[in-house]
């Protein structure tokens, strides 16, 4: 059976390497590839379920056209599909200008070929684009402002840590391969502390689970800093040499006594003291923040305070120590690195109109003027249930005149399309991917021919450009590869050319460490900030974002501590964490995943349930002014009272789309989506 080395291109920490066996045109099995030191034992259940996904009978294999007046779709030829799109594009371009077309792409699949999309739209003459990112901007920006760069120690280095703090992070479900190294650290006598309102799987082997009120992490961090400074458990020499703004930061931290932080965070004072003692006494210490905890309106500033804890204790640039948020050391192909790459350009080029905040997709699409939006092209994404404020996003999509969605399955967004184009899977076209946890560059190698009439996006763009009348020379100049594997490989070789250590031949054998990789990040103690030091005091933060130049704590927009009619009516924090069973809204339609994840439910603390007369399994309504969900309740003694949790990624058609309840607003730093600022009430149905 032919075996191919490939890598999972999902928006996931692990980006696993795997070997796939193909039998007679079908994916037969997937095996581990020990060449990736971060994922040596093989992919997670989702990675394995590709065996079903690729050949799923539910896959879209032909272009489909909406049958007007019904919810149904009819199969059409590529000829008809391309001609329809070309006609619409020509019409909108001449009638309203090219920027009346929204090109929306999300993180469904990673790869260098994704760049072809923007190449096409530039060739077309212009388009409207989004800025910001749903996932991680507040943390990226906090890290960039403080340390100068987003990188961290190699994943396997965590085994050297003596104290690991998983702050708002559930690695067991979102980055299972890290659990291997956490377990090694525990076997070496290390300590694990988890900070999370939920008792997650990651917390099970922790010594301590600190459960702050959602969105209050900044106050906890500042109080810890204050205790460390008061107890003189800090690294004076390190601060002296490498930290900017320590005196000002000390003054800021002094505003947060343990007593005050206990009031803000709902964490008993004794735990704050205990955590501060550990941080002061146990070295090396690593703090690893998750992405969920930085999706509040105050979390950029909170993360700056958390990073400061490592700076003042000298836990930076050493084995087993440091700040783990995102490791962009493999992002060597990007001209500009995240998060700057997704900010609106300071001087627009007149071709791409970057005016839609991804966090406020619905509002901004509706508000776009001169020209207003007429058409959307969606690929690698399912924005209707996945972006904040689903009802508004849905309204904005329905207000358009024409919608094209490139998809593998009939998602909530695909259902809204006028035209659906069948999308390839990762096994049907080669591409090169980086990662954001481990340092490997990998070839996502083609192993199968696309089934049915599926065409890779690069080919769709090529054919569409031809149909729009562009010459071969113009298409080639725009860097849109011609159909076929050869042109794709040429495209990739060109991208790899600046890195002689990386060749397609080498990548076919297995993952390759990115050139220039630093196993222990910042071990050279070089911080590419304006001052060259770790900036606890950041003028850039104040200038760019209008926040305090020091890390700070203020209540999130939706907080029970803010006097507002909202907080009176909706007394529960709605948490929408990720689960091991999905990457955002992918995978749950597969039988293999459905077997372990059959239907959505809401987790409630038994005490909150009792007050509302709700018993295990009873159907409840979770609601606020924006929308509602009706789901069975599951009682969870490990959840912090006052919270309700539904895992995110369920489709509207499955009854669990959590963004029906969220509000489109941005984080304090980085143009992130603050959809975790979300208060709700829960009541029994009937």
């Amino acid at each position: 059976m032919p075996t191919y080395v490939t890598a999972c291109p999902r928006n996931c920490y692990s980006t696993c390497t795997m070997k796939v066996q193909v039998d007679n045109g079908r994916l037969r099995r997937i095996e581990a590839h020990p060449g990736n030191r971060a994922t040596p034992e093989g992919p997670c259940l989702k990675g394995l379920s590709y065996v079903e996904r690729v050949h799923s009978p539910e896959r879209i294999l032909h272009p489909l056209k909406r049958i007007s007046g019904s919810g149904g779709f009819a199969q059409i030829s590529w000829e008809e599909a391309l001609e329809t799109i070309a006609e619409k594009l020509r019409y909108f371009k001449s009638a309203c200008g090219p920027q009346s077309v929204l090109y929306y792409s999300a993180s469904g699949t990673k790869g260098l070929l994704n760049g072809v999309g923007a190449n096409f739209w530039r060739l077309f003459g212009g388009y409207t684009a989004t800025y910001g990112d749903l996932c991680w901007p507040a943390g990226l920006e906090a890290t960039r402002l403080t340390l100068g760069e987003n990188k961290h120690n190699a994943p396997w280095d965590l085994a050297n840590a003596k104290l690991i703090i998983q702050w708002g992070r559930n690695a067991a479900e979102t980055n299972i391969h890290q659990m291997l190294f956490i377990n090694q650290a525990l076997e070496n006598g290390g300590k694990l502390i988890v900070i999370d309102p939920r008792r997650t799987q990651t917390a099970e082997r922790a010594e301590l689970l600190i459960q702050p009120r959602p969105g209050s992490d900044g106050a906890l961090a500042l109080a810890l800093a204050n205790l460390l400074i008061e107890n003189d458990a800090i690294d004076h020499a390190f601060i002296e040499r490498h930290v900017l703004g320590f005196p000002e930061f000390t003054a800021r931290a002094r505003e947060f006594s343990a007593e005050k932080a206990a009031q803000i965070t709902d964490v008993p004072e004794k735990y704050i003291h205990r955590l501060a003692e550990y941080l002061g006494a146990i070295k090396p210490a690593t703090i690893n923040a998750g992405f969920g905890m930085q999706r509040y309106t105050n979390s950029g500033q909170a993360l700056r305070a958390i990073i400061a804890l490592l700076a003042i204790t000298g836990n930076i640039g050493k084995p087993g120590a440091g700040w783990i948020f995102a490791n962009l050391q493999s992002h060597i192909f990007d001209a500009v690195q995240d998060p700057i790459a997704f900010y609106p350009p300071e001087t627009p080029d007149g071709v791409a109109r970057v005016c839609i905040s991804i966090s406020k997709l619905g509002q901004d699409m509706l508000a776009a003027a001169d020209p207003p939006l007429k058409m959307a092209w969606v690929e690698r994404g399912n924005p209707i249930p996945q972006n904040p404020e689903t009802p508004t996003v849905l309204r904005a999509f329905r207000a358009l005149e024409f919608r094209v969605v490139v998809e593998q399955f009939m998602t909530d967004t695909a259902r809204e399309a006028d035209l659906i184009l069948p999308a390839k899977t990762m096994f049907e076209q080669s591409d090169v991917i980086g990662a954001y946890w481990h340092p490997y560059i990998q070839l996502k190698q083609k192993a199968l021919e696309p089934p049915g009439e599926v065409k890779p996006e690069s080919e769709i763009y090529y054919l569409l450009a031809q149909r729009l009348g562009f010459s071969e020379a113009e298409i080639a100049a725009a860097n849109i590869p011609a159909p076929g594997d050869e042109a794709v490989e040429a495209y990739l070789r060109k991208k790899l050319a600046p890195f002689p250590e990386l060749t397609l031949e080498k990548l076919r054998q297995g993952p390759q460490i990115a050139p220039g990789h630093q196993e222990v990040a910042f071990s050279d103690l070089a911080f590419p900030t304006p001052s060259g030091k770790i900036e606890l005091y950041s003028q850039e933060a104040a200038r760019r974002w209008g926040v305090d130049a020091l890390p700070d704590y203020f209540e999130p927009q939706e907080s029970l501590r803010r006097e507002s009619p909202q907080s009176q009516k909706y007394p529960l924090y709605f948490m929408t964490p990720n689960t091991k069973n999905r990457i955002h809204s992918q995978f749950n339609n597969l039988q293999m995943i459905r077997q372990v994840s059959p239907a959505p439910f809401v987790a409630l603390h038994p005490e909150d349930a009792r007050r509302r007369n709700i018993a295990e399994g009873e159907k409840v309504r979770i609601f606020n002014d924006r929308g509602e969900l009706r789901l069975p309740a599951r009682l969870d003694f490990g959840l912090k009272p006052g919270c309700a949790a539904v895992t995110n990624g369920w489709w509207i058609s499955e009854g669990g789309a959590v963004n029906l309840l969220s509000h489109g607003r941005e984080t304090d730093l980085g143009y992130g989506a603050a959809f975790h600022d979300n208060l709700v009430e829960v009541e029994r149905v009937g």
Partner: protein
Amino acid sequence: MQHSFIFDLNKCTGCQACQVACVIENELAPQRPWREIHTFNEARYPGIPLFHLSLACNHCLDAPCMKYCPALAYSRDPATGAVIIDRDSCIGCKYCSWVCPYDAPKFNPAAGVMEKCTFCNHRLQEGQEPACAALCPTGALQIGEYAESGNAGAIAGFPETGIRPAIRFIPLREGTQAPECSAAPAGEVAAGMLDAGNFPPSPKASAAKIRLKSEWTLAAFTLVAAALAGMTGAKLLSGVSLNPIAFLAAGMAGMGLSTLHLGKKFRAWRAILNWRNSWLSREVIFFSVFMGLAALYLLAWPGSKLIGGLAALAGAAALFSMDKVYRVIPQPRPVSSWHSASVLLTGFCLAGLFSGNALLFGLAGLVKLGLYARRKIRFQKQGRPARPMLSLLRVGLGFALPGLAGLETAGSAFSYVAAGVMIGEIIDRCEYYLELEVVTPRRQMGADMEKRLGAMAQEREAV
């Protein structure tokens, strides 16, 4: 080499990749995986660890499936130690799933046969690990060589019935068992939170494996067998006349009924192959012999005490085997090894009834009544359904009616008494199937969790 699973409780996060790997490797329907994750403390009670067991077949060295399979469909690969079902020999009787405490054999309704984890024997033979172990992302599930003294202590949720399962556990490390939670420190759980009304039932509390609804044909068959054996005994004792055609028709119908639940009805004959070990094979053999001798007795030599005696003896042996078939099932909450619905007792009881032998009827009946009462009292204490109205009916019709009316009544009055006794027996037998429990990991998890909670409640009271 006898292989063994090695499972590290510290490393498993319950990710279920092993389950999906198994489905893919063995090309199973995802709805019927051979490997499953069982989670202890799913509701996350404070102070109690949450952990998982990833379990499939444990390829036990004293495998009850192999021992008791009537059709000799099981074998062990001497090279790897894998216990394998031959799908061409399996008759789909599901008996292996009753005697296995690990819930490993699963019925495949499409194929009509049982299937289970093969240890990925095809991979082991090529020197590869089973798919589940090869693809465990945290390295929690591995394989190694079987070691006799594998497990130091009991693992909560893992049934230990002394059959030498080929799985070794690495228990949770001291010190990282359950996190101290700032929102609910152990021992400070709000009063009443752990009280009965607040116990969420395990969301996975699954239906019992043996259910009257699906096994009524077996209930009917065993009762028919008891009635026929009892009548044979009665004829022997007091020469009551029996209609041979009706008798034989009932016997054939009973046997026919008992094959109805087989996945492979045309392989029913294979059920006698394991007469050396399986009470199920013996039951079929003895019942067939009984029917043959009874036919001779009724049709050819109605006066022969020898043939009649042999027939009655074969009937008793068949009934004894039937009881044994169920008595070897590992019981999670055993009440007593003898049950009031024992068909052997029923056989004696009915022999007494039909022969008018009050002594025999009385003795068997009293034993039954005693066992019945004892079980009901025990159930009441355990909080299991005691079914008082049904019990009243059973005792009233089955014991009180004949006790008061006596067996000497003639004509139609006797048929009322006999009908009452039969109804009583039917109720008892149906209750038996309703209450029959099988040890499974899921049950064991629930039972061990209740124990932990009970201990916690006691500690709290002591404080």
